[in-house]
């Protein structure tokens, strides 16, 4: 079997997801033995490169980046969105709640009109081009990354949980954060992180995005049981679940 050619690209993000790939340390050598890494950020001249799998980190915030993403999509057989910035827009989407001119004004003051400081509303990768697979989280989980890459190499569809964090959290027998009067997004957030935040004594803030058919009614019931209102929930959802 030919080793699939893999290329990794990044747009607006913190690069924390790529860092998780580096953090695999020795294991990355294993992965490299089953794929051919042909580009990891400008490693090679992009015009001449072809790749089977493009892995894209970050969200799209400039017209020129949309153009580049379309090019990548055009060359790749499979496109994988890596991390919350790419799958959902991540924290970058909080920007969209404000007037863009005003946002630029706040950060750059009188210089904000300079052409090189241009910015457009933040988009997730699949708002620009079709995405085949998504690796969720901010940052991604390195085991999940390895699992997805291995599945793709074997031509299998990776199975990503589509049930809420609460399921994992209860399995771990954590005390529910609502018992501490905290607002936890576990009931509506996609599992797969082993309920990491509740396991470290705090609420889930929704970094893996919403489950496909998020059971808002169940979340409402939890809220009511603990005397919280939906606005509190929505306020916290502004971190990772902006449209």
């Amino acid at each position, binding site marked *: 079997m030919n080793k699939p050619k893999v290329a990794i690209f990044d747009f607006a993000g913190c*690069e*924390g997801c790529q860092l998780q790939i580096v*953090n695999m*340390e020795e294991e990355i050598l294993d992965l490299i033995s089953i794929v051919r890494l042909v580009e990891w950020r400008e490693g090679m001249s992009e015009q001449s490169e072809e790749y089977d799998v493009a892995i894209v980190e970050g969200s799209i915030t400039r017209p020129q980046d949309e153009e580049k993403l379309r090019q990548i999509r055009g060359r790749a057989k499979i496109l994988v969105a890596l991390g919350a910035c790419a799958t959902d827009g991540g924290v970058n989407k909080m920007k969209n709640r404000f007037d863009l001119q005003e946002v*630029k004004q*706040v*950060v750059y*003051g009188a*210089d904000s009109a300079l052409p090189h400081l241009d910015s457009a509303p933040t988009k997730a990768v699949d708002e620009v081009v079709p995405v085949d697979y998504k690796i969720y989280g901010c940052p991604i989980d390195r085991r999940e990354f390895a699992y997805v890459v291995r599945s793709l190499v074997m031509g299998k569809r990776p199975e990503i949980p589509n049930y809420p964090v609460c399921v994992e959290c209860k399995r771990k027998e954590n005390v529910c954060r609502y018992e501490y009067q905290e607002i936890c997004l576990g009931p509506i957030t996609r599992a797969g992180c082993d309920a990491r935040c509740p396991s470290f004594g*705090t609420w889930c803030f929704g970094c893996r995005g919403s489950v496909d058919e998020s059971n808002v009614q169940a979340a409402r019931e939890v809220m009511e049981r603990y005397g919280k209102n939906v606005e509190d929930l929505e306020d916290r959802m502004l971190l990772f679940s902006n449209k």
Partner: protein
Amino acid sequence: MNKKVDVHHVTRIEGHGNILVNVQSGVIEQVEWQVPEAPRFFEAMVRGRSWEDLQTIVSRICGICSISHSLACIKGIESAMRIPVSEQTDRLRLLAHYSEQVQSHVLHVGYLVAPDMLGAKSVIPLVQTHFDVVKTVIKLHRMANSWSDLLTGRTTHPITFKPGGFSKIPSETELRGLRVMLSEAVPDLTSLVDVLVSLADLLPAFERETEYVALVQPDRYTFYEGSIGSTDMAEATPLTEFESVVNEYVSTQSTAKWARWHRDSYAVGALARYNLNSAYLKPLAKDIARTFDLETRRHNPYFNTLAQVVECAHIVESALELIDELLAAGLRQEIPQVEPQAGEGVGCVEAPRGILFHRYVFDEQGRCTSANMSIPTNQNHGNIQRDMEALLPQIVDRSEEEIRLWLEMLVRAYDPCISCSTHYLHVKFV
């Protein structure tokens, strides 16, 4: 003899850092350090968000310095709302903060700079030629990562940090385990030093004294608290006056803001910290600094990398003491107590690549109404530009390849966040 360098690199400007060199018949027309990274507007985005969610958001400014950003944020909140923290909290935070310095320094020295240094001798990939070095680097990096995992809940983007304390602290048994792991890292560090010392002489002998800025404290080599020190000033400046230190301005070369204080530019990072605080290094770190002859090379920006190695040793030595103090005092589970209130506060720590400032204003509900952050990489941009302007005339007669390598290595030495230093780096000859 003059040489005409006129090569057009086909690569487009799409990354985060570019070097542009234009030499016509031996005359330097242009040498420019450009930063076209997509801006993300955190200062504007955090407005309206609750004090409880702020750390989660600003941690995402940078995957490599997420612990430093989180700490600067939390300190800013605590100062604005006058939230007291216990000695235990400060010690555990410092311990976590140390882990990030080592994580980041090892990544930089081992994965990003070592290839440059070893590449001077060979072009064959390091795994083939220097497997032992790679193994040591991986071991140290993994050690630092699990150190962060233990204190903050994951390697990148800390979970456990809260204004007023921690959501979860490690057990004493886990701290003892960490202690063992840290003492085992000492021989790995010294073996890395042995490799690097033979390569140090290969680094360009380029000197340009500049203003160095870092946190200072009367009796220690500080990362976590203090006031703002400068090699151009006898007196330290209070953290609350940081805007008068960085004097940020927008450059047409960059989407990131630039900074200047007493001169045209200044430097932050490991070498700046060394220049201000080296008297307080721990014994092993002092030894290593002597081995690298760092004292006579303290105005050579390429030696920032070796100053980072010195810091790794200092940090491991300091962390061992810190763990002993924590264990001697005994760990208590403390629950952070916060009453949100209106106020304004500044938080500052040394991120791995230099001093980092956050300022926040809150309303009575504890919602952020305005924010300002000054990031170390931005404070260095101006200085990188001035270094290039000073360096290029000295090497303009060399081959294009060599010029490219030296300029790239210069940028990498400053350890701009990974985007700039690893891959998004193009030297473009026009």
